[in-house]
């Protein structure tokens, strides 16, 4: 398909990328392109300029600190996360990335692109909330850090403003995590998903049930289904699932994810 005419810029540094994004209202950052290029075909997005982040080594890479904190560059691909020895410190990250779409998409798609797109059916927004990720956002005024809960603002909307970039994601140490989803076909688009982490109490973030991940907590996996039902969630209905069925799935998947997390 022929895209609408668009300018293309390949900055040599994050600073240069930020300048380009700030100077052009119609500019958008191009990460892996596995969402953006497709929505541009459908004209659901029509940026005037694409600022390609693919050449920026500063945005890639995975570091493991002595306290177990993982710092992941926003342009790190799913495949890189799956293969990284450092990322094994939080095994759920590679495990969930291995269930996103297919090999080709995982080779290009990035962790930063996944969370910045904030499609409510994406895998990583609820996972980032469950594991307590912290996102670093760079702009003209410097860097700021927000929690994953503060990062997701609405459907396709995040705390990253015009002229800003998500540069890295910090994930604290931990192993007791779980993820469960009902998808369209094996490893397809999520109809409902749940990410869980156990650290004393159980923390579950639900995807696909609201514009942003919904965080639910309980003392144990046994209590999480009731907590989901009591959370006042009003999921959307669509061709794949009614609101009622999606709410049922939310309670079931929250329990599965919590049980998986608790069993580790």
């Amino acid at each position: 398909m022929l895209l609408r005419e668009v300018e293309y810029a390949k900055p040599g540094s994050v600073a240069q990328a930020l300048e380009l994004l700030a100077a052009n209202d119609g500019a958008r950052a191009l990460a892996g392109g596995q969402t953006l290029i497709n929505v541009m075909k459908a004209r659901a997005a029509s940026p005037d300029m694409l600022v390609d982040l693919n050449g920026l080594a500063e945005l890639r890479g995975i570091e493991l600190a002595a306290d177990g904190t993982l710092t992941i560059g926003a342009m790190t691909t799913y495949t890189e996360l799956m293969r990284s020895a450092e990322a094994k410190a939080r095994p759920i990250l590679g495990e969930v990335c291995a269930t996103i779409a297919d090999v080709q998409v995982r080779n290009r798609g990035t962790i930063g692109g996944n969370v910045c797109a904030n499609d409510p059916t994406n895998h990583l927004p609820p996972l980032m909330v469950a594991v307590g990720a912290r996102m670093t956002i760079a702009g003209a005024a410097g860097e700021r850090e927000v929690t994953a809960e503060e990062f997701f603002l609405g459907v396709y909307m995040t705390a990253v403003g015009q002229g800003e970039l998500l540069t890295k994601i910090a994930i604290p140490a931990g192993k007791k995590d779980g993820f469960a989803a009902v998808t369209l076909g094996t490893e397809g688009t999520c109809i409902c998903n749940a990410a869980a982490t156990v650290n004393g109490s159980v923390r579950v973030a639900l995807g696909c049930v609201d514009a942003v991940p919904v965080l639910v907590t309980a003392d144990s996996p046994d209590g999480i289904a009731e907590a989901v039902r009591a959370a006042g969630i009003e999921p959307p209905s669509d061709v794949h699932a009614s609101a009622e069925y999606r709410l049922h799935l939310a309670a079931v998947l929250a329990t599965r994810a919590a049980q998986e997390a608790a069993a580790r």
Partner: protein
Amino acid sequence: MDVSVTVNGTTYARDVEPRKLLIHFLRDDLDLTGSHIGCDTGNCGACSVIVDGVLVKSCMLLAVQADGASIETVEGISENGELTPLQQSFNEHHALQCGYCTPGMLMSATALLRDNASPSDAEIKKALQGNICRCTGYWNIFEAVKAVAK
């Protein structure tokens, strides 16, 4: 914009509009029509090519993004006009009916076998997940790949 790419060992320099997808560049500008456009929405994998050693769907990459890259397409996998063992195996296992998905299937299987010469059954299936065959020939395709796995 000026774009220079090496495709199957031949270097091409062209002036390309930024909005042009890599698959259109390969097919329309370079006349390399082996890579197919099936869905144009990133689902079917018929446009799969290998860019700098990485398997990608060329309908989700701009041609300008491939500037400086080394690209492998289905036209380039055979050597001296001989079918590769994988291509020969596709032939022997009747792993194609209409053949539309075949270029993408071959590239995905080529990438798999380079990365892992002895894939398990599950690994073969997972490696082909991004390629859709409307003739429902998946089983024969799976067997063709399995036959050349060590």
